[in-house]
């Protein structure tokens, strides 16, 4: 098992990519500015004027602590690839679209509404959520149903910590997550026939599993918009689409909630959608996967049952027929 010793350096200690990207920017800009005899301060101001988008959406560094639940022994996927190869269909169906189009997502102020089978409905602001528990560095493998995978250093804490604050009733058997939706902001949402907002759900025990992460950042910084800012769910043993992005509503329910891809094509996307190399998808064999960022001749590797997290999650499915409940 690859879970165990935390990395020597928490990802919060790594120079955040936004910092060196800005540095590169400034250096590039200074080449011209020096010739013009401009001071560094002025150069920085001008640079901000020239590229307001970059500065306005720059990620901010988060205070993090190491976690025993992090995955070790894997080479991290680059920040560039994690942020430029996204399925976020509200911002376009091409993998490169969300990086281009998600700039308008209003991540602050942001509230998460808690409703349904709870003692009393609640609303959390993003700042409340960030302060609720210490933010942990958790590296997870991320396996998309399309047969590609990444290794991502997320930042967050177990969703169970948040659920405890929500005070769900005993009748709450499932939890549903609804993503932000505004067709004026997400003008690209008509590129597919999906019925918005995006909905995902977990069984209560799955949601309470310590691996399920309420996620606020990656590579030590707050989440870039295209990766589901400002708060998302990450369920590392399930196909990526189970991990709802930009969550605005958490609803506790007594029946299995309707979920977006399961509604679109139930024969292709089951409610559980646990990573399982022995159950093929009608479009893709799930036996192998392509690791993002490697050359084409080195991309393929065998897919692991439960994406390699069986030790922590397999017991939840004891006695279930995973061929039927895929």
């Amino acid at each position: 098992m690859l879970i165990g010793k935390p990395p020597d350096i928490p990802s919060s200690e790594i120079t955040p990519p936004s910092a060196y990207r800005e540095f590169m920017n400034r250096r590039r800009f200074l080449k011209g500015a020096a010739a013009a005899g401009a001071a560094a301060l002025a150069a920085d101001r001008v640079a901000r004027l020239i590229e307001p988008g970059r500065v306005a959406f720059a990620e901010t560094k988060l205070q993090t602590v190491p976690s025993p639940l992090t995955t070790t022994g894997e080479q991290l996927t680059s920040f560039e690839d994690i942020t430029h190869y996204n399925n976020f269909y509200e911002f376009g169906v091409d993998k490169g679209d969300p990086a281009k189009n998600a700039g308008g997502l209003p991540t602050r102020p942001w509230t998460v509404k808690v409703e349904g089978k709870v003692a009393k409905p609640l609303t959390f602001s993003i700042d409340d959520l960030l302060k609720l528990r210490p933010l942990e560095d958790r590296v997870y493998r991320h396996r998309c149903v399309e047969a590609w995978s990444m290794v991502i250093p997320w930042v967050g804490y177990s969703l169970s910590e948040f659920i405890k604050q929500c005070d769900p009733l005993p009748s709450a058997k499932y939890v549903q997550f609804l993503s932000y939706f505004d067709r004026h902001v997400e003008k690209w949402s008509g590129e597919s026939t999906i019925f918005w907002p995006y909905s995902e759900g977990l069984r209560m025990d799955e949601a309470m599993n310590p691996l399920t992460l309420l996620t606020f950042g990656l590579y030590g910084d707050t989440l870039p918009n295209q990766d589901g800012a400002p708060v998302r769910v990450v369920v590392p043993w399930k196909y990526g689409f189970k991990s709802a992005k930009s969550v605005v509503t958490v609803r506790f329910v007594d029946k299995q909630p309707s979920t977006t891809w399961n509604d679109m094509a139930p024969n292709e996307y089951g409610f559980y959608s646990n990573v399982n190399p022995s159950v093929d998808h009608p479009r893709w064999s799930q036996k192998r996967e392509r690791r993002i960022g490697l050359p084409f001749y080195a991309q393929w590797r065998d897919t692991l049952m439960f994406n390699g997290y069986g030790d922590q999650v397999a017991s939840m499915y004891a006695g279930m027929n995973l061929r039927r409940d895929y």
Partner: protein
Amino acid sequence: MKRSTLIALKTVVWIACLVPFGFLVWGAVTNNLGPDATAEIANTTGLSALWMLAITLAISPVRRLSVHLAWLIRFRRLMGLFVFYYASLHVLTWLALYNNFSIRSMLDDVTKRRFVMAGMGTYLLLLPLALTSTNWAIRKLGGKNWTRLHWLIYPAAICATIHYWWKVKTGVLEPAPYTLVLLVLLLARPVMAWSKRRRARAVSV
């Protein structure tokens, strides 16, 4: 058209058609094919074949618009062979990268996945067309038989479009523009034949 103009134009078409391939080779050598290199190769070869097929199908109706465009026919075989070239690279990508040359894995893929089946069907329809593209084959078959055989380009184009729709996820409308173009090109034929008949009648009356 002058011989020198034709040669110059053919050179330009050759170079233009090799751009996607050049892009892939350059990307592979410099390790610059994007985050998912394998998918990039599959998508580029597949989309190149699709759009070149649309261009091939456009040649016949467009040249009939004016006598001055009759020379376009001299580019149809070239375009058709480029369709086959990219389709072959696409199939090779599937064989080598997606199935690791394993017969078992290929059989599994073809029988289990309808989009692979449709893609394979397209390639099998294109194969006899490429094989009978030489002047020798045209002479041997005779013009009439050759034309009859090459009618297969229409089912091939339809099959390719179905392959595209079945490949993308349910609800994704990405193949719509291509489908629209193909629809226009296929409908252009009966519409043009009909208007020609009408004009012929008008003249005879």
